[in-house]
């Protein structure tokens, strides 16, 4: 396993302490404690509605958490009541968001920009990095995800798997500390899932820090350095994938695995 020897003193890329999130009166996340150190690939597992998406969205401030603390790379960026927003301006939030990039279930590419345009958009216009350099990096990323030949094509001309690989390149181009994936293969035709998973697997081998919500159990078993099992908005288990899949400690996890793994 990659990360068993990682020094526990390493500053975590993402560190959540007692994070809570409510929608109205409905508590969706309760006391989430999670530490993700650089180089880790954490897979978030759990039944539908368990709060995986909400957790990811709190980490990049698309949702405002209600209580608890969020540390990004050792900096406390949200704390206390209304943890997400109070005290942070929209501009500061935007800056934080560029340190955590996101790959969405439905890709969410910008349809009015070419593949290359999608990738260089935020680095040029948000991060204000030099254009020529950003484009060169984007081309290298396209090569990496195997889509350099689609450089000047619009997203409407791509298959789902290709769109998601572009979305991954777009996230990588931000050079953020961590990439969040929200069910990156759930909206793909079965025959396209493999090409996306193999790109993510390659990233894991490169030591990219990632948190991946997924229903692909085989993938989680193979790629995760750690799996976190969520149910009803709580972390019920967190540990080595091998151990988790062989002997889950909670009854809920056991039932969950029975449904997904044979």
């Amino acid at each position: 396993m990659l990360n068993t020897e990682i020094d526990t003193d390493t500053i975590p890329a993402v560190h959540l302490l007692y994070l809570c999130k409510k929608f109205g009166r409905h508590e969706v996340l309760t006391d989430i404690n999670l530490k993700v150190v650089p180089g880790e690939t954490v897979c978030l597992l759990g039944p539908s509605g368990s709060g995986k998406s909400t957790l990811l969205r709190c980490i990049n401030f698309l949702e405002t958490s209600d209580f608890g603390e969020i540390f990004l790379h050792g900096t406390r960026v949200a704390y206390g009541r209304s943890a997400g927003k109070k005290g942070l301006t929209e501009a500061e939030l935007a800056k934080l968001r560029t340190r955590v990039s996101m790959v969405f279930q439905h890709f969410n590419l910008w349809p009015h920009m070419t593949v290359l345009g999608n990738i260089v958009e935020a680095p040029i216009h948000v991060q204000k990095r030099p254009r020529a350099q950003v484009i060169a990096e984007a081309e290298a990323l396209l090569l990496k995800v195997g889509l350099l030949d689609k450089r000047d094509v619009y997203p409407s001309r791509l298959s789902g798997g290709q769109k998601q690989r572009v979305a991954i390149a777009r996230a990588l181009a931000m050079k953020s500390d961590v990439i969040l994936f929200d069910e990156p293969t759930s909206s793909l035709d079965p025959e396209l899932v493999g090409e996306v998973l193999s790109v993510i697997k390659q990233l894991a081998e490169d030591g990219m820090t990632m948190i991946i919500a997924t229903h692909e159990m085989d993938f989680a078993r193979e790629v995760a350095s750690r799996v976190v099992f969520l149910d009803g908005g709580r972390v019920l288990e967190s540990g080595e994938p091998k151990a988790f899949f062989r002997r889950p400690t909670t009854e809920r996890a056991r039932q969950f695995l029975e449904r997904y793994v044979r």
Partner: protein
Amino acid sequence: MNLRFEVIWNQLPMFANGLWNTVWICVVGMLLSLMAGIILVLPLISRRRSLQLPAELFVDVGRAIPFLMLVYLVFYGLPSFGLVLDRWTTAIVCLVLYNTAYIAEILRSAWANIPRGQLEAGRAFGFTGMGLLRRITLPQIMIAAAPVLGNQLIQIIKDSAFLAIITVPELTHAARTVQANHFVPFESFIFAALMYWGLCLLIEAGIKQVEQVRAVYAKY
């Protein structure tokens, strides 16, 4: 019945001048309304009710008043308040006031149909406020709204015929003048009607073109 189309032939310069005035008034009116519409749509799509309400009121009122009534109000009514606008200014002001409401509503509904995920991706990648609007939201609104905006231009051209009433020398006014001077009502009006039709065909062809190009960018 004895139709005298040679009169039309002789009066062609008059019609051409009318057509030209119709075209430029409408194009200028459209462009200004589009700019005003883009500004008006911002409060419409804002989350703040206090901004939304006045904008919604403007759109409602704008769409409730008949165009001719607006022209009367501005041309004959405003002088009571010491505001006298010449016919050209009145023409442009009325076209813009009237169409801004429609265009803002067109843009708002285009915005409402943009998949939320794309705007969310914009926020997730660090865009905010004006940056988000300029780079992500507005281009998609315009692409989505383009064909409907083309139809609105056709509407503007048809509405502009009312401007003949305040003697703006546009196409309908030209036709009216020719028929009055030469007693050729049918010839004169049917010729003007054909010219309106031709104009609309041209715009419709433009819309088709836009729709084809748009298919590449808009579909997702």
